[in-house]
């Protein structure tokens, strides 16, 4: 009782206000399943049409490159067309989730976290003695984190993993009495949860931020973050393939180049700036947010590359054709989403 009251009080931060109040206000958390996001239909349509147009252009370029290259097998082009095909599927799934509403978006990202955590833990050296800790991570902590987004309980959402999970999980492992590599195993489990669940859950949590003058449009903020970060990945790839000469981190990720990094970050920041109308930011603020997000995304990608390299693999998994695993596509989002969320919450939320 006291605990739950204490935690409830924690949630009454300035951004979220008292929970009851938020519940009553339309447009935020309600109990109706799949409540519409109230995505302004004209804006939603324009975004969907623009993304579709961009994908059509990419598909056309892919076909032209294929024609020019001739009939001999070409692994780079095969990978390119696989990537574009996967992009179509990802955009359709995301579009369907946004049409389905707030709860559909939360469920989609819960699944994304599940697939990411599965890939992460597969690569770790956890063993028999960690089974209980991992059971708790997958079947208790992960659903609970998304339940907290669902019911809009910010105070508990922010500490469930860094406080409760980080203390309970090593206890759940230590009771099996196996001290071998204990610190490494504990760190691996905790980092898996941090990256795959805590960080990624900040994407749907953007839907819960009460921003004055922006009510009912939060879905656009999620789309803004995803467009900026993902296009930064794509543009880095494109700039790198076109102009890339100087490797930027040869020991971590040999395919990344200085030219790709500079071109990608600059053009994704520019893209973010031109999209300022869909955000609660002024143009210069949109530029700063886009720059921050793309820088976090780039360095996050390097961190995840270092982990992969150390474990001797190229990709996290094989869920998304041409891209690798879920984490290969989402590593940049994981590193940028929490910072994006907290900057927005601090400077723009009421």
């Amino acid at each position: 009782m006291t605990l739950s009251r204490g935690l409830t009080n924690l949630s009454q931060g300035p951004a979220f206000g008292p929970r009851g109040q938020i519940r009553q206000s339309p447009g935020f958390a309600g109990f109706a399943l799949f409540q519409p996001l109230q995505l302004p239909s004209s804006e939603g349509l324009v975004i969907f049409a623009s993304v579709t147009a961009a994908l059509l252009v990419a598909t056309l370029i892919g076909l032209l490159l294929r024609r020019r290259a001739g009939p001999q097998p070409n692994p780079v082009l095969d990978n390119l067309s696989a990537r574009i095909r996967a992009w179509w599927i990802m955009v359709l799934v995301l579009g369907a989730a946004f049409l389905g509403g707030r709860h559909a978006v939360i469920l989609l990202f819960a699944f994304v976290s599940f697939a990411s955590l599965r890939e992460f833990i597969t690569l770790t050296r956890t063993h028999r003695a960690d089974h209980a800790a991992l059971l708790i991570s997958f079947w208790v902590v992960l659903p609970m984190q998304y339940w907290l987004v669902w019911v809009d309980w910010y105070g508990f959402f922010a500490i469930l993993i860094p406080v409760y999970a980080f203390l309970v999980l090593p206890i759940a492992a230590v009771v099996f009495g196996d001290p071998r590599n204990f610190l490494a195993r504990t760190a691996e489990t905790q980092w898996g949860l941090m990256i795959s669940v805590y960080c990624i859950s900040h994407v749907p949590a953007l839907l819960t931020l009460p921003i004055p003058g922006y009510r009912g449009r939060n879905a656009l903020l999620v789309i803004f973050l995803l467009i900026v970060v993902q296009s930064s990945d794509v543009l880095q790839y494109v700039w790198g393939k076109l102009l890339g000469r100087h490797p930027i981190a040869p020991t971590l990720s040999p395919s990344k180049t200085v030219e790709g990094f500079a071109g990608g970050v600059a053009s994704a920041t520019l893209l973010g700036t031109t999209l300022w109308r869909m955000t609660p930011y002024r143009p210069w603020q949109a530029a700063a947010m886009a720059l921050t997000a793309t820088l976090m995304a780039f360095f996050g990608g390097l961190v995840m590359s270092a982990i992969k390299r150390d474990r001797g693999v190229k990709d996290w998994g094989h869920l998304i054709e041409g891209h690798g695993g879920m984490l290969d596509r989402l590593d940049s989002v994981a590193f940028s989403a929490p910072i994006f969320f907290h900057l927005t919450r601090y400077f723009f939320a009421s």
Partner: protein
Amino acid sequence: MLEPLVATLITAGTQLLTGVQARWLGCGPAEVQRIYFANHTSHVDFVLLWSVLPARLRKTTRPVAASDYWDRGALRRYLMHRVFHGVPVARGRIEHSHNPIATMCQALDEGASLILFPEGTRGPGGEVQPFKSGVFHLAESRPHVELVPAWIDNSYRVMPKGVLIPIPLLCSVAFGKPARLEPGERKADFLDRLRHSLVELGAA
């Protein structure tokens, strides 16, 4: 009537939990009568192997199952006999009333392919244990059947011996090059060769 539905649910659930993928390295998923012999560390092993087979092969592929385990409890009996169409064999001493080799040969003569764990029981997840001799007797008496090594990766971590609830981790099943008993090959050499091919597949 419900059995195909239960089977679909089990394979879909396995897919969702482990994202299991088949790696056909030494042969393809052909409609050839085979004995798939695999490493055994977990209760999910058989279901993993069974799930990655194409549906048409799955229909005619039967697991060889220890009756002392699978005949305990109504649910296990239902799954093994009605859903998986397992070939029940008794572990331990061979008796005249129930000869496991005869039972397996009968299943082969009916046209089925078999899934066999020649280590006999679930190991601790490290080394592949020495093979029991049953697979030799099968190869000797039904020489037309291909012996395909199948390496199941990561299942021990999904559900090690003694735990009730699995954790979701990525798994894969690699299929190696089919083997047959060479003329004049001795039992010990043959078992060693099969075991070695499985270990090698695991390192690939």
